[in-house]
């Protein structure tokens, strides 16, 4: 049962990874990468590691995405200034 669940999550993660790589829009790509982390944190719970799951969700998924967005925002600002 767990294996099937992980398998489904894995397929979604791989799909998200492909989206993150091939999606033209940077914003979507960043969000897709965030989704991978988020799904990974679910797997971590299944792997009996709630500590890591929390961290991955908060830092790997949440904060990393925010940092990406900040950077993107910054780049847009520079573009606008030019």
């Amino acid at each position, binding site marked *: 049962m767990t294996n099937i669940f992980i398998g489904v999550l894995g397929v979604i993660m791989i799909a998200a990874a492909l989206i993150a790589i091939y999606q033209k829009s940077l914003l979507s790509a960043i969000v897709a990468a965030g989704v991978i982390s988020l799904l990974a944190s679910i797997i971590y719970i299944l792997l009996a590691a709630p*500590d890591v799951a*929390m961290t991955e969700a*908060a830092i790997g998924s949440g904060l990393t995405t925010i940092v990406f967005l900040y950077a993107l925002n910054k780049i847009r600002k520079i573009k606008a200034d030019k």
Partner: protein
Amino acid sequence: MVKKLFSLIILALLVIMLLPLMTDFAPFAELSRVAEKYVQKGPAEVGGQNLVTSVIVTYRGLDTLGEIAVLFIATAGIGFLLGKSSGKHKRSEASQLVNTGTAFLLPIILLFGVFIFLHGHLTPGGGFQGGVVIASGILLFVLANADSQISSNLLHWIEDLSGAFYVIIGLLGLILAGGFLDNSILPLGQFGKLISAGAIPLIYTLIGLKVGAELVGILNNMQRSQ
């Protein structure tokens, strides 16, 4: 195009190379030598329910200190890279809704963060997770209060002092107990209680503060530069 094809072939070879890690490999069936000892003796030696926390803060405390240092360096590095803060960043005045929301939410968020890192030795979570929560709270606060000079100053103090206190506590371990970062400088207390596990709650508090301040620092530095 040729380059992509070539990259693809190389990655395929890499996968072939890594195959033994999947095929010729049996997962742990029993705990490793080190883990065995942590599980057997950990609760008594360190006094924390959550062994991950015990490992992070005590057994592998040096890693964690290093990790804090990495975040610290990244914050400093980003500040260094993006140059002088120009101060010309004009924030649009926050709306009434945000202000009220912040006033209402901030204490709860901060409390939640503190809860997470204070209970690090008991339940999942700890300084890092709590730190992120605190960081989000502070970000909200910064969003609401355009007058960020005070907050950034305060952040600096929190960041620097919590780091320094962390080192000092580690040093106390060296002087008073078995070694650098030994948590038994404070009594281990009663197993499973909030005030237990020696200095772990204290250390995790400092880590939480420092991580929170640093994460905000990273975002601030990225935001504010010219």
